[in-house]
């Protein structure tokens, strides 16, 4: 009966991230692998959800208020004029918003440019829709956009460019100049841009998240996707959205309605409260994450990792292996799990290009620092111990 599986599903392999996570679970490792917090969600947001359940907001629902608030936010933060009545689809997480956006725009054989290294989900969504992912490598060590490589990746079948900024796994925040390059190319080649902006409120130092849609000529052709998950530490609630010009948003909604019909009702209600958090909330969020970032950078540097690029945003650091270690990323991660009890993700799972310079593919490990102080301290302790043990050996 295996012959009955669809071709699309057969191309898809189980996530290497999830497999290592199972190993980490088995040995009880400190989990710096998966990108979700182990500290509680904000109290005011949880309370709103409980209140919604108790107040019987439990049937199929579309909470228009979410769109109204998002529209105001987009105006305030990015100068975007969007219509809350027509330009949104509320989905089960950014995951579903992205899947719906892909299904709404990608036909068989359409090419989609994705910057490499890349979060693993994009490729599979594109392939499920019978599209062709085309990877554009970012240049290490700072993961800069190489305009030449980028422009050469376009063909007459290119339908869309996927932009994840702030970026998983590198922590890069695409600069104004880079966004201009992307914008010019999208307009010249008449493609969509599909953005994943889930880390939009987690940026560091002077780095500011700029929404690609806010660049001249881009709003019309950009589909923005984002969610509550990372900003409000509720990755398990599945509330996300897509925002696009009316006819595109309508197509996305049509798909979404067939995929899941609606996002969980009580959490849509809670989103109204989350999305109207005070400015203090966002400044605390940044401050807390900055402290975590700095802590983990110190921890990794002490252990011997080479931090060639300091995260400008997101909850990840992409640490480079020391050459003298003579280990691949997979081997190092396995060793960290089994010998130190600390789990991280080998970078190879994020690299996809099969041509050109692949020397960096096995040289990076991704650490998540969206973890409580206890967890981070425990990880630091374990790594220190391993380093000491190894030094003695």
């Amino acid at each position: 009966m295996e012959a009955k599986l669809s071709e699309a599903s057969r191309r898809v392999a189980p996530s290497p991230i999830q497999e290592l996570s199972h190993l980490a679970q088995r040995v009880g490792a400190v989990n710096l692998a998966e990108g979700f917090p182990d500290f509680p969600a904000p109290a005011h947001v949880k309370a709103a959800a409980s209140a919604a359940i108790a107040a019987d907001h439990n049937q199929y629902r579309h909470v228009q208020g979410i769109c109204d608030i998002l529209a105001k936010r987009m105006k305030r933060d990015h100068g975007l004029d969007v219509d809350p009545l027509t330009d949104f689809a509320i989905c089960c997480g950014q995951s579903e918003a992205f899947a719906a956006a892909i299904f709404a725009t990608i036909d068989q054989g359409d090419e989609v440019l994705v910057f490499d290294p890349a979060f693993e989900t994009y490729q599979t969504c594109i392939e499920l829709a019978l599209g062709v992912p085309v990877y554009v490598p970012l240049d290490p060590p700072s993961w800069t956009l190489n305009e030449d490589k980028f422009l050469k990746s376009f063909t007459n079948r290119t339908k869309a460019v996927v932009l994840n900024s702030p970026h998983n796994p590198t922590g890069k925040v695409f600069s104004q100049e880079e966004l201009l390059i992307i914008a010019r190319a999208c307009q010249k080649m008449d493609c969509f841009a599909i953005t994943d902006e889930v880390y939009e409120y987690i940026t560091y130092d002077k780095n500011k998240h700029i929404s690609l849609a806010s660049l001249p000529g881009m709003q019309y052709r950009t589909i923005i996707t984002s969610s509550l998950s990372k900003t409000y530490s509720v990755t398990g609630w599945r509330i996300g959205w897509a925002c696009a010009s009316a006819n595109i948003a309508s197509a996305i909604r049509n798909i979404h309605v067939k995929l899941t019909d609606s996002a969980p009702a009580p959490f849509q209600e809670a989103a109204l409260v989350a999305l109207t958090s005070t400015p203090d909330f966002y400044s605390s969020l940044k401050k807390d994450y900055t402290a975590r970032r700095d802590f983990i950078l110190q921890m990794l540097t002490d252990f011997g990792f080479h931090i060639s690029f300091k995260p400008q945003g997101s909850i990840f650091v992409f640490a480079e292996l020391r050459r003298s270690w003579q280990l691949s990323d997979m081997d190092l991660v396995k060793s960290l799990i089994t010998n130190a009890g600390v789990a991280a993700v080998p970078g190879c799972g994020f690299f996809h290009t099969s041509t050109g310079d692949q020397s960096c593919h096995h040289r990076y490990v991704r650490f998540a620092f969206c973890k409580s102080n206890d967890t981070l301290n425990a990880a630091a302790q374990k790594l220190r111990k391993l380093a000491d043990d190894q030094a003695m050996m």
Partner: protein
Amino acid sequence: MWTQQFRRATRHRLLYAILTNGGNPPSPPGGGATRPARLGLPRPHARMNLGGTLAATAPRHEMPLKPSSFLLSSSLRRSLLASVVVRKVSPTAAAALSPMASASTVAAENGAAKPTETQPVQVAKRLEKFKTTIFTQMSMLAIKHGAINLGQGFPNFDGPDFVKEAAIQAINAGKNQYARGYGVPELNSAIAERFLKDSGLQVDPEKEVTVTSGCTEAIAATILGLINPGDEVILFAPFYDSYEATLSMAGANVKAITLRPPDFSVPLEELKAAVSKNTRAIMINTPHNPTGKMFTREELEFIAALCKENDVLLFADEVYDKLAFEADHISMASIPGMYERTVTMNSLGKTFSLTGWKIGWAIAPPHLTWGVRQAHSFLTFATCTPMQAAAAAALRAPDSYYEELRRDYGAKKALLVNGLKDAGFIVYPSSGTYFIMVDHTPFGFDNDIEFCEYLIREVGVVAIPPSVFYLNPEDGKNLVRFTFCKDDETLRAAVERMKTKLKKK
């Protein structure tokens, strides 16, 4: 005949546009009373899939409908879909519709407010089968006229306290991060336990149960995970709208076998003729929305024989299995030889009146579960965590909960059935679900849509015109679907309105 079709189609678009324009007729193409275009793009004049202008309560229904597509030729149908941007739908415009050409885009890009005559829609071809929702239209009309809504297939009462409390507890206990992709272990176990009780089948919660965002996603993941473009899939009409749309998204070749009144039994010989070695899958929904039919053991065994003979998969949507009144629900998976080729789909929403929680699942043998899980992990990645914890509590409800559920719904059903009979409808027997199909022809209307519009405007009750649930809408034009998943007061009021205001011809 074509002119007649076009006239009806225009009337529907007009009706739709009036509703979405808040009562004003749509402005002529080129602007006028519509809002100024952003970025020089023309405003769509008929909003499709309107999210709703009402704060928070515009319902996301469970059964989105197509417009009167049966009245349109297929090219006009495509243009209706695309008429989100095409403002003047003429036959030539429809024929001219094509994926967006660069030229018109570039013209608009300059920022000049130059609405193009036929702005093509740059969306994927798979959307051709995705139509606008008459349901939204009906709901808006209902609100406008203060009609009692027996159309929407979700309750206007809420779920049991013990389940809601479990969810609140889960939120407070911090169960708010990503759940395991295929389900929280506790819920997978509870689902397996319940399935054992219901079907007698023992399944492995780790390898054979996948939790999804509602049964809708179980259906989407099953189809996208197991169906290839060009595969032949057989449905029974009338069918829940997402089946055909999702199958078309997967590029399947859909065949429908029509179930007909009075008992909507499966036309066995017709089905046998339709199934061949080319058939990849058959989809069944039992108990059946919208007819209330429950597939009999004889029918299931007949279908099973065809599946085994031709190596066909079986997708079973059993979301109403706990609302079985006149017969026992039988899972196809429990028919000998069928488990290995069956995906059984279900959800929490209908049984526990929590349709907005989006907790569903698919049960299938490991080699089929794998495909479902692949698609699922890239559609939504994981399902809402706190609700999963609460769902586990719900599924462990004692038998008394289910008995009471059946009793309460049974009483509502009697209320509505008797009321509909008294009002003059021909009422078909419904063995399960919370839907009843009736024949409206005693009232002298040509088709179901016209009747339903009249019912809203003059009688003040909403029902669903089911013709859109057929591949050939003519098959449904005499029928109307009512639901009784409403509180007693609502049902009584609706019945009263129908008894006093419906006029037989």
